[in-house]
């Protein structure tokens, strides 16, 4: 039993990271209907910025703040320069553009920082909390706490600020949002900036657990897709809960389903994606596309 609970705790820790990247995916999808395949690479790039600052002697938390600000600006800039020209183009066009962005950002990171792996400092203390027979690492707690904090801040932004209200309006009915005077173009850019910032948090949380290298986020992105699909691509809450479920499912499958082990674990998100698309395409918390006329 203790072993089982231990696996769940480990799964939640991994799940929180998937949740944070899924949150970034969902943010952009909500505003623009775009699935941003480059989200993980942007997070990776942001993490390199943090690493560079830390390597130059900046304290971790200051480096984090600078990284988040730079990521926000970078996300907005990408929307203006790369996405804006294909706004309203067929979905396939936009998918190809974000895949192109994926490759470009990946290559740019390799070019700037090389493909040699780098050590990334863990911001959380090394010890662990003993709860009976279950051990919870402080870093797991830290990751869960940070993701919870990000969720809370996003909730406040969307539900209790005027900018958030405007963003929700753009997400649900851009034409009507324009008619009440909202500058939709800038709001979309804001959404990309926000997503890039949330993604950066995700990258910085992953990096100490894996190693920092340009392909660091590739696996995480697949789990994040599973999380967003499971929770519903239009539901931030769903993305987080989906992330936690995917993390736990993956860990349990790896531990208890003999033939899966640690090698086939990456197959778990694929199964989740397939099952959700077959059984409940809108996800657990998503809104089916039915409305009263």
């Amino acid at each position, binding site marked *: 039993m203790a072993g089982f609970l231990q696996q769940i705790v480990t799964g939640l820790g991994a799940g929180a990271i998937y949740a944070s990247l899924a949150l970034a995916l969902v943010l952009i999808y909500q505003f623009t209907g775009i699935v941003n395949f480059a989200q993980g690479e942007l997070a990776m790039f942001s993490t390199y910025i943090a690493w560079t600052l830390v390597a130059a002697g900046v304290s971790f938390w200051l480096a984090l703040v600078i990284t988040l600000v730079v990521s926000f600006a970078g996300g907005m800039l990408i929307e203006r320069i790369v996405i804006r020209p294909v706004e309203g183009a067929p979905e396939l066009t936009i998918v190809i553009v974000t895949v192109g962005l994926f490759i470009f950002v990946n290559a740019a990171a390799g070019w700037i920082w090389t493909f040699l792996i780098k050590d990334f400092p863990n911001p959380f203390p090394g010890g662990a909390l003993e709860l009976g027979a279950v051990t919870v690492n402080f870093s797991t707690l830290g990751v869960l706490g940070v993701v919870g904090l990000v969720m809370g801040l996003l909730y406040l932004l969307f539900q209790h600020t*005027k900018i958030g*209200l*405007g963003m*929700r*309006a753009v997400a*649900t*009915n851009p*034409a*009507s*949002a*324009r*008619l*009440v*005077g*909202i*500058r*939709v173009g800038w709001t979309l850019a804001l959404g990309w900036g926000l997503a890039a910032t949330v993604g950066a948090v995700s990258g910085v949380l992953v990096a100490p657990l894996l190693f920092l290298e340009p392909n660091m986020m590739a696996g995480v992105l697949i789990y994040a897709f599973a999380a967003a699909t499971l929770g519903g691509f239009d539901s931030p809450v769903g993305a987080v809960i989906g992330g936690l479920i995917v993390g736990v499912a993956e860990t349990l499958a790896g531990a208890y389903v003999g033939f899966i082990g640690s090698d086939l674990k990456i197959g778990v998100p694929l199964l989740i994606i397939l099952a959700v698309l077959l059984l409940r395409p809108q996800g657990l918390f998503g*809104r089916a596309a039915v*409305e*009263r*006329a």
Partner: protein
Amino acid sequence: MSDLVVDGLVAGYGDVRVLHGVSFGVKQGEVCAILGPNGAGKTTLLRALSGMVRTRGTATLGGTELAGRSPDTVARLGVAHVPEGRGTFMPLTVEDNLRLGAFVRRGRAEIEADLDRIFTYFPVLKTRLKQEAGSLSGGEQQMLALGRALMLRPRLLLLDEPSLGLAPLVTRELFRIVQAINAEEQTTVVVVEQNAHLALGIAQQAHVLETGRIVLSGTAEEIRADEQVAQSYLGYRV
């Protein structure tokens, strides 16, 4: 002296031209009805005024050019457009929808006061504040759309087919409220409507649009008395 002056307005979608040089004026505080058959360009005319389609020609409100500006800029100039389909933010609450109407305004106290004012016109909205707008009936959604438009404190109100899809009784009630709003707020109104009876009932001036051109203009009484209009849009002979 007209407040809204439209002169030689041309508009369309892509290569398809829908309006071929429309000119008319509306005095401050008056209601102007635009009548005409399906496909005459009535909706496009409103869209041209609020910047939703590309235009040539001019349309000025109190001397400020509207034509060629983006919808968000036109809204900031005091034009509230209740579009075809009502433009409801379906998953958002009724309250959010109303507050969005005042998005470009400053002054919290005034906005709160305006909310209360809107509840005097539409008491039903007050009882549904926290409800999803998409769950309202068609008539309630049309009231919400009007309320949202009023939250801008518009100088010019553009209404696109407010009667569409509503029961006759609900429609009459709605037009009564539009008339009250126009009288109390001195808001200039341009209303596009297939139901000519209702529109002429609240309008001072009216224009008949056919295939992108104004073919007949006059006071509401003159238009109502016109034999051809009577046959085509009112359904009876004078």
